[in-house]
């Protein structure tokens, strides 16, 4: 009985954190006025570099999530909406499945290195991960093609995405490489189940899909993924045949409200628990190898990497706004920080690799 009460309390607290985050996105002024400085501050927009919308000039736009329209491209200079997406009009571009809003779980990528964003991954409040291809220069009603890449929840489960997807390439070799999309869920309703941290594999990362191809795509479901910390099983998933769609971890409580970070093929994620009156949270961190989902960092500093590193409580409490990052001017060696707190066992180390040498003097 006390266990179920405790679980309910945990989910309620996780929900409070996540619900405040959603409120702060959709009703920023009222939410901030009620609880100034006490919000996880999910990022509500991403800066996008788009060449042209409807033959306009090259410009910098903001991609913003919301309830309706679910997505908008806002002109930075004028504040005008240049494009929007939703389930129904007056959205510029219609996506019939876009019935749940977005709350800042947005990541824009420049896939071909031409300086313009051409891919967006976004998590909605119904636990679905969307993928969009941006067609720079196309008319406003066709600037994006997109659809649901992964369907990992439903309205009754109360889990949604607030944290931006953390995207990384699996291998420098274009043939056989894929994109890892690491993203965690947050509880949006009281009593929502255990939250998850997913690592999904987009094996068609290099392909630009038409809308018809998006509609033909069968979304990845949780049953397609390997549950890494399933009590009944152990070990790491096998990618025999290159068909693994990804894997996930479950958490007994807490919500993921900030982006994970990927370093040297390992992802680390922070999970917020127990919001208190002083706007601070307890935080657990987890690490997984992007290759096979095994624990990847010595987060508990016991000198070895084991299953206990999948979920480690950090000492002390942290502000709700704390996110994983590297210090400014990180250089080639730097610890990972969560807010101002050093995450043990997590560090960025980079070394110079010689790739060629030649002698130019004629001798």
């Amino acid at each position, binding site marked *: 009985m006390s266990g179920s009460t405790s679980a309910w309390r945990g989910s309620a607290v996780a929900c409070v954190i996540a619900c405040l985050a959603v409120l702060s996105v959709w009703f920023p002024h009222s939410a901030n006025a009620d609880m100034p400085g006490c919000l996880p501050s999910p*990022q*509500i*927009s*991403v*800066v996008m570099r788009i060449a042209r919308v409807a033959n306009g000039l090259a410009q910098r736009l*903001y991609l*913003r999530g919301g309830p309706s329209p679910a997505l908008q491209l*806002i002109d*930075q200079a004028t*504040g005008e909406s240049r494009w929007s997406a939703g389930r129904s009009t007056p959205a510029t571009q219609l996506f019939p499945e876009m019935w749940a809003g977005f709350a*800042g779980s*947005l*990541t*824009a*990528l*420049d*896939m071909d*290195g031409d300086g313009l964003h051409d891919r967006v991954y976004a998590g909605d409040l119904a636990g679905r991960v969307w993928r969009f291809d941006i067609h720079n220069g196309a008319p406003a009603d066709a600037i994006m093609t997109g659809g649901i890449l992964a369907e990992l929840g439903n309205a009754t489960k109360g889990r949604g995405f607030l944290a*931006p997807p*953390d*995207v*990384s*390439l*699996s*291998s*420098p070799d274009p043939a056989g*490489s894929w994109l890892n999309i690491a993203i965690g869920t947050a509880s949006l309703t009281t009593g929502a189940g255990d939250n998850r941290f997913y690592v999904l594999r987009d094996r068609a990362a290099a392909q630009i899909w038409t809308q018809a191809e998006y509609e033909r795509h069968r979304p990845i479901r949780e049953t397609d993924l390997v549950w890494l910390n399933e009590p009944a099983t152990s070990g790491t998933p096998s990618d025999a045949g290159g068909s693994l769609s990804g894997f996930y971890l479950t958490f007994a409580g807490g919500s993921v409200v900030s*982006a*994970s*970070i*990927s*370093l*040297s*093929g*390992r992802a680390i994620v922070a999970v917020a628990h127990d919001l208190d009156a002083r706007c601070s949270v307890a935080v657990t961190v987890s690490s997984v190898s*992007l290759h096979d989902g095994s624990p990847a960092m010595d987060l508990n500093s016991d000198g070895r990497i084991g299953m206990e590193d999948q979920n480690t409580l950090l000492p002390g409490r942290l502000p709700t706004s704390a*996110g994983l*990052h*590297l*210090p*400014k*001017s*990180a*250089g*080639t060696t*730097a610890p990972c920080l969560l807010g101002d707190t050093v995450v043990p066992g997590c560090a*960025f180390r*980079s*070394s*110079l*690799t*010689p*790739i*060629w*040498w*030649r*002698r*130019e*003097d004629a*001798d």
Partner: protein
Amino acid sequence: MVLLLLTAVAAFTASALDEAVTNRALAGARLAQQRAFNAASAGLNLAIAELRKGSHSPLHTYELPGADAEVRVEEKSRVMMPAGYSAGRFVEQFYEIRSSGSSVRGARSVQVQGLKRVEAEDPAPAYLDSAP
């Protein structure tokens, strides 16, 4: 007869002397070239050490014993999505270091080294930019 013999010996001696002088000149040039080569190598290593420390100047001259090295460090292409790292938060930076070693007698040696490493792009990803 003796005079003829002396003339022949003198001719052989002159030829041997000339060869010795030529060999010495060649050895000196080779030594100077080797010094220039070593100076270029040392310049490369010094520039790589600076780059490892995270501080490097695009053009630097190192004074070395009997030689010097002029080193130019150039940032070349950047891969915006290095494998295994968060896209948008890290880049793979390629460098080219050109080291030109100089020694006496105008001896010169040029060595070029290509390198790469993953670098943190920003303390925070682009989505942390505030909206208008």
